[in-house]
Each structure stands twice: as C-alpha cells, then as structure tokens.
C-alpha cells in the first residue's frame, strides 16, 4: 500500500491541533510556534500533492478507499481532481499566513487564570478548521464530505465567538455581545443549511444505495441509476441550499458581514478565503456531478441570484462605514462571480470560477490582513477614523493599495484573469447576464478606491499621526501574498494547466459543450 498522502495532509493539522491545545498555559509562545510549524509542514504535504498530481492522468488521483460504516453504505474514500488540488494548495498556503498574522490576537489579557488558555485554543482551532477543510476537499464519499462540512462549523464558531479585536469602538461588553451574536448567526445559518442537506443526503442514499461520488456519477452517466426528475430536483435543492448558505449567495448571505466584522482579521480571512470555498467547490463537485439535469434546470435562477449577489454586494460595499464589513460585502460580490462562472456551464466560466476561488483567497487575504494590521494600530474599524495614513505608514498603505487593486481585478494582478474568464464564459452563453455583471467591476473600483482615498490619503488625522509602519512579522505575511498575486496575474498557466482537465470532465458530466462562436455568413 502506498503512503496515504491525502490522509496525511488532513491528519497532520488535526494532530497538530490536539498537540497545540495540550501545550501548558505558561508556554504560550511554544504553542504558536508549534502551530506555525505544523501549518508549514502541511503546506509541504500539500505541495507534494500538487507535484504528484498528474493533470493529464485519471480524474481522481492519489485515491484511498477503506471501509468505514458499512451499515450506512459509507466508505472512507479520498481522491483529488485538479480543482481540489488547487484549493488544497490554497488552504495550506493561507493557513501559515493566518497564523502569523494572528500571532498576538489571542494573548490572554489576564494571566492569573492558569486554566484559561485562549492562545492554545485559538491556534488549535485554526488547525482544526484547516484539517476539516482539507478533508472535505478530498472526500469523494458524499457522507464523508457531509460530516466534515458540518463539523467544521464548530471550531469556526468558537473562533468567531471567542476571539475579537482587542480594541472595539463600543467597549468590551458590547463587543462580546455582538461577537456571540455573529457567531450564533453564523452557526444557525450554516447548521440549517447543513441539516437540509442532511435530508437530501439521506434521500440520495435511499435512491442510490451508496454514497460513493464516483459510483453514483458513473451510474448516472451510463443510465443504470434512474432518478425521477422531481426527486433529482429536490435532492439538488437540498444540496445547493447548504452550499449557497456557505458560499454565501444572496439572499442567504447576511451572516457573512456579521461574522467577518466581529471576528479578528485572520479569522475573517479564514472564513471567506478558506471555509467559504468549500461551498463553491461543492457546487462544482457534488451539485453538477450528482444532479446534472437538475443543475441545468436550476441554472437560470442560480444565475440571477448570482447576478444579484454581484451587484447587491458591491453596492452595499460602497456604502459601508466599517472596513471589515466592506471587505465582507466585496466578498459576497466576488462569490457571485464564482457561482455565475460555475453555472454558466462553459469551460471558460468554470475554469475562471476555479481560478477565481484561488485568486480571491489570495487577494482577500492580502487586503484583509493589511486591514487587520491597520485596525489593530488605531483600535477602530470605522473608515472615518482614518486619514492620511500613507504619509505616516507608506508600506502599510502601499500593500493595502495592492490588495485593494487585486480586489478590483486590475489587469496584471491575478484576479483579473479569473474575472475576465468568468465574464467571457458567461457572455458566450448568457450575453445579457454577462453584460450586467460587468457593472460589478465598476462598482468594485468605486468601493476599493474610495476606501483607499478616505483612509490613506488626505490630511493626517491626529490619532494616526504616530502610527508605526508594518513590522517584520507583518511584512513576512504580506509580501509573499503580493508576489503571488503578481505572479499568477502575469503567468497563470501553472494553475490553469491543473484546473482545466478537471473542468472539462465536469462539463462532460452535465453534457454541455461550449457554444461555438457564430461567424456571420459571408454575403
């Protein structure tokens, strides 16, 4: 038996989480280093997966399959396609930065209480989330996927509710109330989505008799598993609902601004750049493969909802007074693009959507983490409390600008490639929707540049006059992300090479071919 690489990639952070949680209260710094080292080792494993993955090979590679709960027809089945590989790499890449950025976020205020170990808890929870996200990217058994899709809510919930910004404009009491409100809202939205999916998962079992994605998809393709149209549609809706809450898609998005606003910046990145990707990823992997006909049936509605997300998210971002909530609404707009790309059912659209997931992860991480550094310096999330920062802290302002420009998809930075692909892919099949969606780009320019203008330019506000520039630790976090944004913006080929074959497969699942360009007949 070969080395179970995929299991190892997920198990390492899980074990790391347990080890980190067990570090004694006094050895706080050791816990941080332990978490960082584990996350780097996980990154090494993820890179190994990336290297070992052969884009031209089988659809699912590095597969593992073991019997698990035979009574439920559940197997422990792992396997990765190009899309999963890209997202695992993204996750493993971002976690070390998240840990570094949150280095001091969970230092306890009171050191007297020997039993209370928030620092250990914080880093253990981050690693636990990483482990669960990675395994849900790897799972090719629907039940296995479901278990971790649901279970990751719990550590995420504690991260949101348990750890907030040090300084809060309304005082600690209100902050704690708002935090726990945000955490509960996050959990309830996602739990309801998950439970509705549970009903659909059970329904799928009743129809199909097992949970293996590959077996069911194959049986669907060769016609040996016949689903009544209405059954397929109900099951599709059950799955899609859960993913749409997670992604999040308008009108199920309202938990995201609360959660991202109240969580610390690294946790906000964890939510939007890592955890939410599971939702869009699962649409590609489960909705389209298991229910191709229902997916086609639902396309018009989904596209309209995605379009509303794009425009509505962007409009609300323009109107935000709070930096973190602004980024949250921008993310909603971006998730609209991703979902639009997936359901445009063109290979450009879906490749674009997959690239978008990766690029959005990197660009949001850059923007949000710098924003977090900014907020930690001034102790306020309100845009109005800043002004003229670029004169005081030029490096901070510069990196913030690059993160912002990436968010508005400036050509030359990575998100441009993916946004362009999504729009082209959508336009090829649904020109009207594609045209309306471009408005989102204009609005993105508006909210990013206005944010920059109000916080970084203009006269220096008294409160920010003594603001220190980025420290070494913070530079170590931001610089690699910016390098990546530029690199993938100029040369996205390594990523597209991995992703494209998987997208072709998915396209053939839904029996869609790209629309041929129409050439006007010569007169």
């Amino acid at each position: 038996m070969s080395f179970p690489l995929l299991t190892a990639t997920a198990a390492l952070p899980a074990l790391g989480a347990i080890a980190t949680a067990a570090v004694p209260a006094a050895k706080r710094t050791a816990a941080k280093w332990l978490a960082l080292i584990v996350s780097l080792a996980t990154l090494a494993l993820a890179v190994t997966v990336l290297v070992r993955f052969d884009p031209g090979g089988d659809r699912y590679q590095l597969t593992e399959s073991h019997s698990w709960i035979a009574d439920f027809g559940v197997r422990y089945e792992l396997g990765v396609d190009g899309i999963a590989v890209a997202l695992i790499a993204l996750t493993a890449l971002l976690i070390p930065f998240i840990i570094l950025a949150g280095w001091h976020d969970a230092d306890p205020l009171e050191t007297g209480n020997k039993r209370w170990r928030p620092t250990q808890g914080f880093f253990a929870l981050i690693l636990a989330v990483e482990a669960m996200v990675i395994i849900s990217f790897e799972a090719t058994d629907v039940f296995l996927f479901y278990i971790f899709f649901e279970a990751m809510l719990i550590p995420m919930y504690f991260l949101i509710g348990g750890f907030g910004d040090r300084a809060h404009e309304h005082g600690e009491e209100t902050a704690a109330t708002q935090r726990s409100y945000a955490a509960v809202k996050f959990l309830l939205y996602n739990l309801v989505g998950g439970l509705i999916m549970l009903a659909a998962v059970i329904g799928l079992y009743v129809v199909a008799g097992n949970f293996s994605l590959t077996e069911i998809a194959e049986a669907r393709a060769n016609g040996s598993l016949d689903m009544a149209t209405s059954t397929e549609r109900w099951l599709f809706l059950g799955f899609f609902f859960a993913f749409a809450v997670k992604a999040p898609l308008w009108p199920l998005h309202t938990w995201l601004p609360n959660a991202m606003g109240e969580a610390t910046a690294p946790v906000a990145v964890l939510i939007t750049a890592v955890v939410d990707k599971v939702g869009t990823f699962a649409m590609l992997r489960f909705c389209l493969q298991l229910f191709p006909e229902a997916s086609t049936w639902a396309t018009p509605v989904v596209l309209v909802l995605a379009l509303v997300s794009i425009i509505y998210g962007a409009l609300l971002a323009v109107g935000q007074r709070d930096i973190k909530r602004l980024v949250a609404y921008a993310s909603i707009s971006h998730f609209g693009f991703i979902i639009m790309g997936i359901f445009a059912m063109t290979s450009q659209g879906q490749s674009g959507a997959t690239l978008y997931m990766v690029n959005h992860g990197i660009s949001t991480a850059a923007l949000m983490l710098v924003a977090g550094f900014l907020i930690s310096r001034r102790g306020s999330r309100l845009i109005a409390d800043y002004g003229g920062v670029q004169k005081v802290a030029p490096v901070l302002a510069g990196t913030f600008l690059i993160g912002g420009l990436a968010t508005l998809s400036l050509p030359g930075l990575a998100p441009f490639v993916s946004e362009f692909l999504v729009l082209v892919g959508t336009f090829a099949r649904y020109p009207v929707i594609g045209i309306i969606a471009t408005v989102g780009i204009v609005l993105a320019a508006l909210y990013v540049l206005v944010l920059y203008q109000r916080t970084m330019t203009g006269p220096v506000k008294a409160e920010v006059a003594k603001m220190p520039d980025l420290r070494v630790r913070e530079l170590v976090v931001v610089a690699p992300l910016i390098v990546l944004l530029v690199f993938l913006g100029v040369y996205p080929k390594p990523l597209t090479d991995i992703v494209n074959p998987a997208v072709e497969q998915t396209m053939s699942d839904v029996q869609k071919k790209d629309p041929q360009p129409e050439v006007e007949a010569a007169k």
Partner: protein
Amino acid sequence: MSASAVHSLWTTAAEPISKIDPPKIEYGQLSPTLIVIGAAIVGVLIEAFVPRKSRYYTQVFVSVVALVASFAAVIGLAAGGYGTTKAGIAAMGAIAVDGPSLFLQGTILLAGLLGVFTFAERRLDPAAHGNRVDSFAAQAASVPGSDSEKAAVKAGFTTTEVFPLLLFAIGGMLIFPSANDLLTLFIALEVFSLPLYLLCAVARRKRLMSQEAAVKYFLLGAFASAFTLFGIALLYGYAGSVSYATIAQVVDGTVPQITPALADTMGNDALLLVGAAMVVMGLLFKVGAVPFHMWTPDVYQGAPTPVTGFMAAATKVAAFGALLRLLYVVLPGLRWDWRPVMWAVAIVTMLGGAIVAITQTDIKRLLAYSSIAHAGFILAGVIATSPDGVSSVLFYLGAYSFVTIGAFAVVTLVRDAGGEATHLSKWAGLGRRSPLVAAVFAVFLLAFAGIPLTSGFAGKFAVFKAAAEAGAGAIVVVGVISSAIAAFFYIRVIVLMFFSEPRPEGPTVAVPSLLTMTAIGVGVAVTLVLGVAPQYFLDLAGQAGVFVR
C-alpha cells in the same frame, strides 16, 4: 341406561392430577433479571441488619457487583446465541429472550451502573457536621425544615435505601422490554415505576420541589398505568389471551382455536383498537412523547439530579423497548391503523419538544424538553416498521443514554450555596473558570444537537435513514427542521458558557470523586467512539434487530 352412563351426561372424567405440569423456568436465560432483583432484596436486608455506618459501602458494593454480574450474564447469553439463533420464549411464555431484549438489557444495566456511581457520589456537597453527604435527604420521612430533619442531618443519616430502590427499578426495566405478555408488561411497569416515584422525592436540597415532582409523577404515572391496565383488559377481551403471540394471531386472523366462552367478543375490532390505543398511550407516557409529556419537565427538574439522569436514560430505553415489541410483535397486523397516529405523535413530539425548549431558563428543564424532542426522533425510527428501524432505534437508545447520564452528571458538579446551580444565567462564563467541565458539557450538547463526529449524529442518521427507506420522507424533513430548532438552544448554552463573562457571584465547579468522573468519562468516550467509529455497535444493533414471537 346404566347409572354410570347417566352420570356421564353431566360429568366428565378429570385428567389425573399428575398431569399438571410444574412451571418450567429457564433460570439461566432469566439470570440477568434474577440477579438484580435478588440483589435488591439483599439490599433491603442490608438496610435492616447492617449497622448504619457501613451501610453505604455495603450497598454500593452489592449494587455494583450485582449490576456487573448481571451484565456479564447478558453478555454470556448473547455470546451463547440467545440473541440470535437460540432466541426463544422463557418462563412459560412470559418473557422473551431475544436480540432486542438482550441489547436493551445490556444498555439498561450499563446506564444503571453509571447511575449507581452518580448516586454514590459524596464529594460534591460540603460535609455536614463532619459527615460526607450525597444527593439524597438525610431522612426522607422528616418534614422539610422541621426539627426532625435537622436532627437527622446532625446525626449524619443518609438514605441508603436509594440503592435497593434503584436495583428494583432496574429489575423492572430489564423485564419491561422483554415482557412477552401483557400482564408481565404491566407488572414490570409497576415494578420499575414505583421505586422511581420514591427516588424522585428524596432530594437533599430543594426538598419541597422534589416532593412535588414525585407527587406529580406518581399521580400522572398512576393515571397512565390505569390506562394501560384498562387497555390490557380490552385486549384480553378481544383476543382471549394476554400473550403477545396469541393476540398477534387473532389480529392476523390465524388463530388455531377459539375458546367458546370468548367467541362473542373475540375479534371485535373496537376492543382491539381502543385497547391497543390505551396500552400504547401508557407506553408513550413513559417515553415522554407529546401529548403525554406534561410530567417530564417538572419531574426532571425536581428529582435529585442523579435520579434524573438515570431515569432519563434508562426509562426511555426500557419504554421504547416495550413499545417496539408491542408494535412489532403484537400489532404488526394493525400497522396501517397505528402508523398514521404514530406519525402524528412523532411530528408533534419532535417539534413540540424543540420549540418549547427554546424558552427554558433552567438547565434541567431544558434537558427535559430536549429529551422530549429526542423521543420524537426515536419514534421516527419506530415508524419505519423494518428491521433497520428496530436496529436504528436500538442504536439511538444506546447512544442517547450515555450522553444523557453524562450530561446530568455534569449538572451535579456546577454548584453554589443553594446546591446545584441549575438556572442558566448562573452558567455564564463557566468556560473561563473550568474549561474542561465546560468543554465536556459542550461535547454532550453537540451530541444532543446531532453534530457529526458525535454519537448523536450517528443515531439521528440511523433513524432518519430507516424512516426515509420506509417512505416516511415527511418525517425526515420535520426531523431535520426540529433538529435545527433544537440546535439553537443547545448552542445558546454553549454561548453562555464560553462567550459570556463569568459572574463574580457565579457558581463553583465541585471536584467530584472518581465515581462521577467515571460516569462522565464513560459518557464522553462512548459519545465520541460511537460518533467516529459506530460500525461495530451498528452491527451489534443490527444482529439484535429480530424479535422472537
């Protein structure tokens, strides 16, 4: 006509006396029950003859040994094939020894063992007058607040009678799911109910509340018993027998011979329907299903917490066992009649329990309503009327009882000056003060909520799957919705524990002895093991899923 011929017109030759068979009792197959009841009687004798000082230790010792021995007997029977190939009827048809019986008996015995541990805990309350005290009144007979009570406390009395009472209750519960005729069912019901009524009344703290709970439980319980008994009478009128097998035959219309005296009423469907409904009603009362749940919150709140934990776990197991047997063995021929009713009961139970729980402010009442909601989930598996349904219910019961005992054991630890601090507001910030206790309780709450990787999820999935396969998709959807509602209040408690600031005058967490720690530790271990690797236990429940007739 000769004299003898004339005589024979109105007499007939009697069978020779020697032909009366002595009752044949399979002592080996009945040994689990016999051991426990025997130990209970020994416990009563201990109360009479052993000096007061050493009673506690003797009682705990006898109870633990009896339960372990009884559990060993269950394992032995199961290993000997009495759960599968050698399953049969024992004690002249009164008791069925089969898979479900043994599985449920094993579960009840383990729950009982953990129950003994929590009953025996004497480290939580500060010592009174130099004597270590447990959760039970110094002298149950003395009026609360009276001089006699004070004297009893001062003298260091303890109510060690709780141990034999507990054993009697367990003995009754062992018979209840394996009863194979209606009279045995009723007797078992009374045998386990009466000790429970008493146990509810003997709390050391908040005695009036405890006594009130006991009276409520007794009155409503007696009412339910009366219903059951009346139902049994009607079923006897219908079938001419109290034996499950015979009633089932009459329902199916395959009865071999009809007793002439009963020919008039036999097969009267009105008797059957009314009788069956009343018996089922009595069982649903014990299960705590809506609309027969009214007693649950008051009794759970008022009873001493160790009793609540034991009762919540074991009563549910025993009562669902009996309900399963009744519906699957006696009334399968009637399932087109009872299924719609049980559908309705399951739906209102799930929704009712979950919705009312939201407004609760007392942790014990909250867990009471949660137990009602869980009864609804289990009913979803009962409705499936399939082997999968049986095994999923068995699995759920096993998983649920350990979570419940563990959760109530944690409740006993959180205390302030007035005893246990059960009001939710007092739990604020517990996660800061005692992260371990709060984390353990969070695990139990997540299991109640059915979050994956806990036993609660595996159980819920099993029953919902069974229900969906049996075509009860609507039940699954309602179940999923009420799970979402229920999740809200479990999460509220977690929020309170971890995200709220601790109150300065908040409760302290008592450091328990090894006894309670064992109960909690086993609870957590089972919760996680059944969540991550449930296959072995699902197999066990699957093998145990066949009733003998």
